[in-house]
């Protein structure tokens, strides 16, 4: 018999918190969780490792409780601490303390299936069957299709003599994975207790077919035969009786049970070492446990967790997978593995595990969220949004989930959906600068520049942190650029750069706007800044050389292009080579031109890419070498091709060049046209 005698530190702090939570003086306090004191447990005589572990958990709780009445994320965190403590007490059979901790955990994390389920288990072990029913019922609302909950509800009702309720839960359990045999066994028990041995026999036999290793069923079959007066069948069945009970899928209970026996001590030592940051010792303990208990999921899972904590993720992933091989339907394990893979950037593998987790436990909210992350990272934004929708069914008021769903709608091209979601977020949660920025971008994507500009201007007017302000100006600059209002675009880009000097795109677009206004030197400078921020950005490099060419800096351009072509290819080398050939063939600067080099380069490039642009440069080069016959021939072929292709807009320039070649004149600085 266990009796709470005195309050521990945890209990005392809770005792102080409870009045705060229940006085109702302030609206926020009125909604504060109601926590109950945790009974003191006498740990005298208990193994030192166990005592240390429990003491550590107590200290964590006390520290968290000392922070005052928890709300929001703090409440979640505290719930987790209480849940962990509850599990620990459960492992060591300290049931009253386990019950109190799990009650508090469930209060603080009301959507946690695990705490409700374990609370039901603690109450059941304490013989508090009504409390067990209540906890399991609440667990059931969180995971309606959990087989273990259905079986346990059936069993508790059976123990309470409520046959109809028991029958209902067992019937529900028949269709659930991993509980069919247990459900039939339970239905047989109900039938037998209600004096229907015929039905009982059918259910017992079905259970045995479903789970032939459960040879204890022969005993029940024998009793049913006896009740039906079939003595021979009864004795035959009794001969087959064994000790193996009817099992059902109950990963949480298995985890607790496994921790409580045999291997528990080894795992315990490892966990204690882990808690003390003695990683090497922890790893050694867990490896011993894996060696001694090769079929233990918990051992492999613990080793993986230790390795993960030590940052050895690849090894951790391997051991998680080993654990999963033993318990492929362990939802917690699937989730942990998915989490690790996500953090490693192995999104496909993560998504695969997380999908299995939510298939088994559709009400496992965190798994849906983590799955959405995997999917979003692999570009499956609409699937990610769907996963977040499932998570939102479990937590409809979660702002972050709604935000991420809207973001995924946007990235997945469902702009109208994203717009509505973000607007409803603004309506529900008030002004939000980030959402305003996203709404502006969506409006832009929907071709509504005026509305978009209003959103960005609203953001600028409201003031924002530099990164957001920078983004808003950048977007406004883009809108004005698209409207060819370059004079208005330029100051926005400049403000965007002032707020965030590392915003490469702003430099790039500023360069474009300046170029459109003929300010080529300034445009080249802007492009150079973008290139400095990202030396591998070939677009920025192209923008810079183009601007310099337009500014008449041909010699500089030649040098830059020659240097660029000596660099490892970072993309765009073909473009730069062709441009170099063009500059060598057609620069107005005599010191820059080199017809032979241009021709060699151009003909070489044409061998690799026979495009009109390449053909045109070959013609330019022939003209520069004085071979107008070849220049004319190449230009005529080019015109024929353009004509065939219907590229009429390019024909006037092409014909103009042909006329120049026919007149024996090379073409100069064609890029200025």
């Amino acid at each position: 018999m266990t009796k709470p005698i005195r309050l521990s530190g945890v209990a005392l702090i809770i005792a102080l918190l409870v009045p705060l939570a229940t006085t109702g003086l302030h609206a926020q306090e009125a909604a504060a969780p109601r926590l109950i004191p945790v009974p003191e447990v006498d740990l005298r005589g208990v193994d030192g490792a166990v005592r240390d572990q429990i003491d550590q958990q107590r200290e964590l709780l006390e520290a968290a409780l000392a922070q005052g009445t928890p709300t929001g994320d703090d409440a979640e965190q505290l719930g987790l601490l209480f849940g962990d403590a509850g599990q620990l007490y459960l492992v060591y059979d300290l049931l009253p303390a386990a019950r109190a901790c799990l009650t508090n955990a469930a209060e603080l994390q009301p959507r946690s299936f695990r705490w409700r389920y374990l609370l039901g288990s603690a109450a059941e072990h304490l013989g508090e069957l009504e409390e067990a029913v209540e906890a399991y019922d609440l667990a059931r609302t969180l995971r309606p299709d959990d087989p273990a909950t259905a079986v346990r509800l059936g069993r508790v009702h059976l123990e309470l003599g409520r046959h109809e309720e028991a029958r209902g839960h067992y019937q529900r359990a028949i269709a659930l994975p991993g509980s069919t045999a247990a459900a039939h066994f339970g239905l047989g028990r109900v039938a037998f207790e209600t004096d229907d041995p015929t039905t009982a026999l059918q259910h017992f036999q079905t259970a045995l077919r479903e789970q032939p290793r459960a040879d204890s069923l022969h005993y029940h079959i024998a009793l049913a035969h006896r009740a039906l007066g079939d003595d021979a069948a009864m004795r035959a069945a009794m001969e087959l009786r064994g000790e193996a009970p009817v099992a059902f899928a109950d990963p949480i209970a298995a985890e607790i049970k496994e921790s409580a026996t045999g291997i528990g001590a080894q795992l315990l030592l490892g966990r204690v070492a882990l808690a003390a940051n003695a990683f090497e010792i922890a790893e050694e303990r867990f490896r011993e446990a894996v060696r001694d208990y090769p079929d233990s999921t918990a051992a492999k899972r613990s080793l993986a967790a230790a390795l993960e904590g030590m940052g050895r993720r690849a090894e951790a992933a391997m051991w998680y997978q080993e654990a999963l091989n033993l318990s492929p339907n362990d939802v917690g394990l699937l989730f942990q593995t998915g989490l690790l893979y996500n953090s490693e950037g192995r999104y496909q593998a993560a998504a695969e595990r997380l999908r299995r987790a939510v298939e088994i436990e559709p009400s496992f909210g965190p798994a849906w969220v983590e799955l959405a992350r995997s999917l979003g990272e692999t570009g499956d934004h609409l699937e990610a949004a769907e996963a977040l929708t499932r998570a939102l069914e479990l937590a409809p008021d979660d702002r972050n989930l709604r935000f991420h769903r809207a973001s995924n709608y946007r990235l997945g091209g469902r702009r109208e959906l994203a717009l509505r979601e973000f607007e409803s977020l603004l309506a529900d949660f008030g002004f939000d600068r980030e959402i305003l920025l996203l709404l502006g971008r969506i409006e832009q994507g929907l071709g509504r520049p005026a509305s978009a500009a209003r959103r960005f201007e609203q953001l600028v007017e409201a003031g924002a942190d530099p990164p957001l302000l920078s983004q808003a100006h950048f977007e406004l600059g883009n809108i004005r650029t698209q409207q060819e209002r370059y004079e208005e675009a330029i100051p926005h880009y400049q403000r965007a750069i002032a707020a965030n000097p590392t915003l490469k795109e702003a430099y790039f677009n500023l360069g474009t706007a300046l170029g459109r206004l003929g300010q080529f030197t300034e445009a080249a400078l802007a492009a150079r800044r973008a290139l400095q921020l990202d030396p591998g950005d070939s677009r920025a490099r192209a923008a810079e050389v183009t601007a310099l060419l337009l500014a008449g800096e041909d010699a500089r351009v030649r040098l830059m292009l020659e240097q660029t072509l000596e660099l490892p290819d970072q993309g765009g080398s073909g473009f730069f080579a062709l441009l170099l050939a063009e500059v060598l063939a057609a620069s107005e600067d005599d010191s820059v031109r080199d017809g032979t080099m241009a021709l060699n380069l151009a003909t070489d490039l044409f061998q690799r890419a026979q495009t009109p642009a390449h053909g045109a440069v070959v013609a330019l080069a022939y003209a520069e070498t004085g071979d107008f016959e070849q220049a004319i021939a190449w230009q005529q072929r080019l015109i024929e091709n353009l004509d065939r292709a219907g590229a009429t807009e390019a024909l006037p320039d092409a014909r103009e060049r042909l006329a120049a070649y026919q007149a024996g004149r090379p073409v100069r600085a064609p890029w200025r046209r």
Partner: protein
Amino acid sequence: MRSSCTGLALASLATFSPITVLGSADEVLFTDATKSAGLDFEHWNGMSGHLYYPEVVGAGAALFDYDNDGDLDLYLVQGNLLGNEADRSSATKAWTGDWPPRDRLYRNDLDLRDDRATVRFVDVTEESGIAATGYGMGVVAADLDNDGWVDLYVLNLGANQLWRNEGDGTFSDRTEASGTGDPRWSVAAAAADYDGDLDLDLFIVNYLDFSLASHKTCLTERGEVDYCLPSAYQPAPDGLLVNDGSGRFEDATVRAGLTTARPGNGLGILAADLDGDQRLDFYIANDLMPNHLWLNGGNGQLVEEGLISGAALNADGEAEASMGVAAGDYDGDGDLDLFLTHFHRETNTLYRNDSKRGAVQFRDRTNATGLGRPSWDATSFGTAFVDLDKDGWLDLAAVNGAVTFAAGRPRTEDDPFPLDQPNQAFLNVTAGGDGRQFEPAPAGLLDAETPFVSRGLATGDVDNDGDTDLVITNNNGPARLLLNRTDRDADWFGVAPLLDASRGHRPASGVTVRVHRTGAPPLVRLAGGGGSYASWGDPRVAIPSGGPGIDRIEVQWADGTIEEWPAPPPRAYTPLVRGTGERRDEREEDAP
């Protein structure tokens, strides 16, 4: 003989008043008469911190009439020191009496004045000559040598002892001469006539193969040292000793077939006709192993049919940690049902007897009768079917005390090994479905101010007022006497089935008493036969005499013979001596 008493009145015409049905459980009343009766026995288990298993197992008590004065005297079994003499000084509870500790015999000097009885127990151990200084567990009180005086058979950790009642207030040790000194760890036994030869044989229940040399240190899942569970040791086989009529016994264990079954960790036993074939059967409560039901074939053979009968395992098909056992017709259908007491986190278990002719059958009705949940947290030992509220329906008493430490329970210097638990009673009430249910009686009904570590429960009418009183033994604690004070004015009658009355009294054991009533089913009661835990109770039967009129009393003897007598007079125990009643019928299968 010190008291004046009504004695065992002869049958006579009687008048009956309507049965008084108590309105609520609150009206059940017990008075703790321990102190007023002079009962000063303190059990001592010698606990010294080594956590020797036997320390938490004993001990029991017997209510019996050793001086044939018509009232129940009391024998209490004592523990002792295990291990070295040096451990005596480190015992958690100091021994204050003369060394060595020994069992005690208390004579009941019942004082009847103004129609009210006062119980006074006088310690007569010294003059009785009983020197039982073994490490005691249980006791059986029966006339084992057919001399009309009830003897004592004491079960020990080590050799059991037979104390022969010399008829002059003294006892002599007849262990060796009788051949009853079973050296194993015995906890309980049943004295009953298994072979129908009109003397009482001994079915001895042995527990574990334990010795100090084989003592083990056991750990909990928290790594703390605790008393072991029985699985730490091998079971000790039970034994059957057959009486030759003179008090000498022959070992019939093999001959009777007891070795055909796997030995169990036996703790409790009762003898009764459980399958309705008019032969005496034995039911053994085994700790964490399937219980045994030895059905009597009538040819000297016992056949173990526990599993077949459905009374070996609970409804889950699991063996439970059975300690005590009781038999009684709780549902009034004319046969004896079984109640088993168990470890905490197991329910106690009620097996309803659904046997039909030729087919023994029990059904676990624990949940249906409401007995499961209230017993979940208790480790129960002694138990009995008793009509606590005198409504004619058998209620249940169970006395409790842990054997392993409750996880996390605070320990103190005074009580470094707290094992105490409250006792319980369950009242048999009308319900739907099964027809009967049990409701927990008010908490504390059977407790002192603070609970003890209870073990034995001996039941009997200590003050001869027609109801059942209780003696509760407590491990490392005081024996307590609780007198039933429920509706003291209600009418009653009593019977005392005797095998012979020519010389003293020879109480029968394991006989079935049927009280036939006008327009109502018979009331069925078991007289003698043991049961409970390590204890032996009153072989007489008291019945409230209100309600339907009593037609006749029928006694089914151990050999299957059935005799009947007219309704006995009220407010007295009427001896029903075998051979003096009207023979009713032969065994059904033997009838033409």
